C-alpha cells in the first residue's frame, strides 16, 4: 500500500501539540471479565457484571465482540473476528459503546465489512465520517410521511406494474438463479442518471454469506457501469463468522440512515436475508437460546422487522424531523427533512415454497413483493417476474403520471392474458376478440423482456409501453417485437428526446405526445413490413378500413 506523503494543514506542530494536550490519559477502573469458553464464534465470559445487551467488548489482541446473552455469573458474546484469536483465560474489557460503523461520503465507491474496515485494498477511509449505531430504533410514526416519490428501477416490468417508491420496502423473492440480484443491480445502475443530474440516490449493496468471487464480480459490474461513484458495498462473505453475517444488514441500514437523516435519498439492497436468518440461527443455537420452528430462534421475525422498519420516508418538516426519536449524538445538528431510505430485501426460496417460515415472515413485513419464477426464467422471460402474484402496496402513488396513465391497467391486462393463454391451449377455434387479446398479451410480454445491465429511462419506458398497451404492434409478428422496440426507441432518442421523452419522464402526456408516438410507431411498422418477404405476414389479418 503506497504511503500518503502529502502534508495536511492539520499537521502543523502547534496543532499537533494541542491535540496531544487534549488527550485524556488518566487511568480509570474498567470492568473486565475472563473468557471461560470460546467456540464457533461465541465466547462465554465470567465477570462483566454490568455489561449491557448489545455492548461492544474488546478482547486481548483487539478482537471485538458483542454481548448477546446476559446470564447469572456469565455473559455470552458473539465474536466479530476469528475464533482462534481468542483463548480461554483471556481478559475482555467493556467498551461502553454499542456496535457502530463510521458512515459518510468517503464510503462511496468502497467495499467494507460490517465494522467499516475496508476490504478493497484502497487504503484507509479518510474524511468526515459520522459514527452510526448498527442497532437503532426506527423513526416513529410522526416523523414519517407517505411514500410519494418514485424510485425508478429501469426495468419496464417493475416500473409499470409493480412500481417502487422512495421509502418503500419491496421484497425480491424467488428460487436460486432466477435473477433476484440482477434486478437489484440493474436498479442500482439505473440511479446513474439521478447522480449525474445532481440529485443522487445513494446505494448500499449488502452481500451476506455470498462467495467472495460473486461479490468481486458484482463490484466490477457496478464499477464498469459507473455505479460505484454513488454506491457502498458492505460484504460479509461465507468465510466470515456468523456474527458478521448477522450484523451486515444492520451496517447497511446504518449507512443508509446517515443519508436518510441528512435529507438525501438512499437505497439499500440486502442480498440476502435468508442467509442472515441462518447466521442468526447458528449464533442463537450456540448461545443455547431456545429454538422454535425450523430451529430458528423465537425472535427471528423481530430480527427482520426491526431491520426493515428503518427504511422510511422522512417527513418534510424540518422542525419535526430534527426531533426524530433515537437520534445518535453524532447526527445532532445535521438532520435535514425529507430524506428517504428504500429497502430491497432479497429472500431465496426452496422449490418455489413462498409459504415457508422466513419467506412468509418477510412478506408480511414488506410493502410488497416481486416474485420471480424459474419456469418463466427458463422460457426466456427475463426478468422472470410473475406479475399475477407480485404486488406493490404503494402502487400508483410511486409512479410518474404518464406511466400511471399508460400502464395503469397493464397488470390486470396481463393477468387476463395469462388466463386466456391457458384457456386457449384447449380450444382450436378462437373468436377474433380473444385472438386479438392473446396477440396483444404475447407482444406486451415480449416488450417486458429486458437485457441485464440495460435499465431503461422512464420516458422511453412510457413510450414503448404505450405502443404495447394501445395495440400499435398488431400488424407485426411476435418475433419482430424486439426489432420494433429497438428501432422505435432509436427514432425517439434521435428525433424526439426533448419534445416527447423528457415530458414523459416528467410525467406529462397529452394528445400531441401520443400522436407523435403513434406516428413514429407507424413509420417503424412500415419499415419492418417492407423488410419482410411477401409470404410472411402478421399473425392476425389487418383490420380493414370501412
Amino acid at each position, binding site marked *: 500500500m503506497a504511503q500518503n506523503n502529502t502534508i*495536511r494543514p*492539520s499537521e502543523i506542530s502547534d496543532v499537533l501539540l494541542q*491535540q*496531544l494536550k487534549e*488527550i*485524556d*490519559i488518566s*487511568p*480509570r*477502573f*474498567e*470492568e*473486565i*471479565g*475472563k473468557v*471461560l*469458553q470460546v467456540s464457533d464464534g461465541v465466547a*462465554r465470559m*465470567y*465477570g*462483566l*457484571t454490568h455489561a449491557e445487551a448489545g455492548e461492544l467488548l474488546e478482547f486481548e489482541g483487539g478482537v471485538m465482540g458483542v454481548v448477546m*446473552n446476559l*446470564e*447469572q*455469573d*456469565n455473559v455470552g458474546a458473539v465474536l466479530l473476528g476469528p475464533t482462534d484469536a481468542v483463548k*480461554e*483465560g483471556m*481478559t475482555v*474489557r467493556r467498551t461502553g459503546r454499542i456496535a457502530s460503523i463510521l458512515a459518510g461520503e468517503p464510503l462511496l465507491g468502497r467495499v467494507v465489512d460490517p465494522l467499516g474496515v475496508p476490504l478493497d485494498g484502497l487504503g*484507509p477511509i*479518510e*474524511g*468526515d*465520517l459520522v459514527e452510526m449505531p448498527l442497532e437503532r430504533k426506527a423513526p416513529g410514526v410522526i416523523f414519517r410521511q407517505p411514500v410519494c416519490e418514485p424510485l425508478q428501477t429501469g426495468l419496464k416490468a417493475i416500473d409499470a406494474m409493480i412500481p417502487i417508491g422512495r421509502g418503500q420496502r419491496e421484497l425480491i423473492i424467488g428460487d436460486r438463479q432466477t435473477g433476484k440480484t440482477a434486478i437489484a443491480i440493474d436498479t442500482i445502475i439505473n440511479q446513474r442518471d439521478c447522480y449525474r443530474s445532481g440529485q443522487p440516490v445513494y446505494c448500499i449493496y449488502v452481500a451476506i454469506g455470498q462467495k467472495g468471487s460473486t461479490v468481486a464480480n458484482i463490484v466490477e459490474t457496478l464499477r464498469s457501469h459507473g455505479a460505484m461513484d454513488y454506491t457502498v458495498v458492505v460484504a460479509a462473505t461465507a468465510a466470515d463468522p456468523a456474527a458478521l453475517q448477522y450484523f451486515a444488514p444492520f451496517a447497511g441500514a446504518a449507512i443508509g440512515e446517515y443519508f436518510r437523516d441528512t435529507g438525501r435519498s438512499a437505497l439499500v439492497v440486502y442480498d440476502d436475508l435468508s442467509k442472515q436468518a441462518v447466521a442468526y440461527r447458528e449464533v442463537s443455537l450456540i*448461545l*443455547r*437460546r*431456545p429454538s422454535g420452528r425450523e430451529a430458528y430462534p423465537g425472535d427471528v421475525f423481530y430480527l427482520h422487522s426491526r431491520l426493515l422498519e428503518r427504511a422510511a420516508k422522512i417527513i418534510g418538516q424540518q422542525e419535526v424531523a430534527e426531533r426524530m426519536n433515537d437520534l445518535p449524538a453524532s447526527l445532532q445538528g445535521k438532520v435535514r427533512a425529507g430524506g428517504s431510505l428504500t429497502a430491497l430485501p432479497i429472500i431465496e426460496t426452496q422449490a418455489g415454497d413462498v409459504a415457508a417460515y422466513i419467506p412468509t415472515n418477510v412478506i408480511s413485513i414488506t410493502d410488497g413483493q416481486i416474485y420471480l419464477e424459474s419456469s418463466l426464467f427458463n422460457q426466456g422471460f427475463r426478468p422472470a417476474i410473475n406479475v399475477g402474484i407480485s404486488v406493490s402496496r404503494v402502487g400508483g402513488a410511486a409512479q410518474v403520471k404518464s406511466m400511471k396513465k399508460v400502464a395503469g391497467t397493464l397488470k390486470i391486462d396481463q393477468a387476463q392474458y395469462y388466463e386466456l393463454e391457458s384457456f386457449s391451449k384447449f380450444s382450436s377455434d378462437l373468436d377474433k376478440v380473444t385472438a386479438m387479446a392473446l396477440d396483444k398479451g404475447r407482444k406486451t410480454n415480449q416488450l417486458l423482456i429486458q437485457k441485464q445491465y440495460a435499465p431503461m429511462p422512464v420516458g422511453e419506458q412510457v413510450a414503448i409501453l404505450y405502443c404495447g398497451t394501445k395495440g400499435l404492434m398488431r400488424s407485426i409478428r411476435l418475433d419482430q417485437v424486439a426489432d420494433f422496440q429497438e428501432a422505435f426507441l432509436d427514432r425517439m432518442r434521435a428525433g424526439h428526446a426533448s419534445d416527447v421523452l423528457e415530458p414523459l419522464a416528467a410525467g406529462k402526456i397529452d394528445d400531441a405526445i401520443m400522436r407523435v408516438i403513434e406516428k413514429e410507431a407507424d413509420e417503424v411498422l412500415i419499415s419492418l413490413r417492407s423488410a419482410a418477404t411477401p409470404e410472411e405476414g402478421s399473425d392476425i389479418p389487418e383490420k380493414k378500413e370501412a
Partner: protein
Amino acid sequence: MNTGIIASRYARALLRRVEETGNGETVLRQVEVLGQALDALPEFRDVVAERMGVTYSQKMKLFQAALVPTAADAPREPLAPELRVFLEVLMRNDRIGDVRLIFHSFESAYHRARGLKKGTLRVVLPSPDLESRLRQFVESRTGCRLLLKTEVDPSLIGGFVFEIEDLLLDASVRHQLEIIRDQFVERNRRIV
C-alpha cells in the same frame, strides 16, 4: 441459558460443605490450581466434558494428575475429599462440562463469605509501598481484606496494572501510549 444459575447453585452447595468440614482453604487452593489447568489445556477441558468413551474414574485420575505440586520435591497431594465427592456429583449429574464456571462461582462465593477480595498487581519493579497503598485503598472502600498477588512484567514500561475481581486499573506507561496513539489517529481521521 441457565448455565450461570446452575453453576452458582453447585458452587453454593460446595461452599456450604466446606464450611461444615472446615477444609475451605485446601479446597479453594485445589480449585484454583484445577481452574488454571482447565484454562491452560483445551484438551483437558474436552476430555473432562466428554460423555462417552471416558469413564468417571479416568476423569478423576486426570483431575488428580492436574494437582501439580508447587515444588519439585514436594509430594503430590491427593484431591480433598470434599472436592472428590463434588466432582463425582458433577459427573453423575452430567454437569461436569460446566466445571470451569462452577469453580469461578465457588471462588467468588468463598471470598465473599470471608470478606476477601482477590487482586493481582503487575509492575515493572516490585514496590512494597504501592502494595500497601493499594491494600489501604481497597480495604477502606470495601471493608474487605485484599489478597494481593504481585507479578513482574517489564513490558509495561512503567506504572502498574491492578486487577481486582472484575475491575481493572491500567496505569501503565504502555497503556497510556496506546491511548495517545488511538485518540491521535481518531482525531486526525476527522480532519479533512
